[in-house]
């Protein structure tokens, strides 16, 4: 059973690794995605995420379960929601496997699939306004909340 969580608290990578650590695993791969101070050439002043939480959590759990089965892995995934200060972590994934090859593949697959499918959206505020990111698009918003 994978560990998945949506949270408004800071993510702690070491805690996530501890959740997948078992005697059977020899290789652990983690990914963390941090909030950067620039995006599309603009300075990012603030950033926040919202989710359709019940479905996002269900979907995360499905992905992580698929990864565990498909790659013989143990997986833990957390995504932070709400405002996130620049330089802090928005998403963290930890994968443990018997062998490193599967661990790399499972972790890569998880972050790629999470980004494509889990109903979570990023709002970025630049000096000249705020946008919703939706897939590849940026859409202006007046909602400064």
């Amino acid at each position, binding site marked *: 059973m994978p560990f998945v969580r949506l949270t408004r608290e800071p993510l702690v990578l070491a805690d996530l690794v501890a959740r997948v650590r078992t005697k059977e695993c020899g290789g652990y791969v983690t990914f963390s995605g941090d909030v950067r101070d620039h995006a599309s050439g603009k300075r990012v002043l603030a950033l926040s995420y*919202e989710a359709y939480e019940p479905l996002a959590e269900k979907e995360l759990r499905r992905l992580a379960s698929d990864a565990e089965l498909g790659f013989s892995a143990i997986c833990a995934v957390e995504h932070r929601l709400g405002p996130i200060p620049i330089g802090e972590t928005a998403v963290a994934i930890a994968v443990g496997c018997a062998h490193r090859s599967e661990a790399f593949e499972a972790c890569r697959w998880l972050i790629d699939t*999470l980004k494509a*499918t889990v*109903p*979570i*959206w990023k709002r970025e505020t630049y000096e000249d306004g705020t946008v919703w990111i*939706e897939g590849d698009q940026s*859409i202006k*918003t007046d*909602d400064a909340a």
Partner: protein
Amino acid sequence: MKIRALFFAHLRDVAGAGEREFELREGATILEFAEYLAGADIRFHGMLRYARLAVNGEWSTTETVLHEGDEVGFLPPSSGG
């Protein structure tokens, strides 16, 4: 029947709120619901091709028949991670 619709990301701006209640005829599908929304606001036009759909917290399709009290989510392309 009463339907609760959830709008996310820029669709919330379009809808004017993240959550709104609508009165639909019994047995309406999501397709009919979306057509009704597009009639009410041109910016909802094409939303079914753009957004993914959920009913009561599970992925859904345009053909899904709605029921009293259903929660319908309109979910733009994701940008998590």
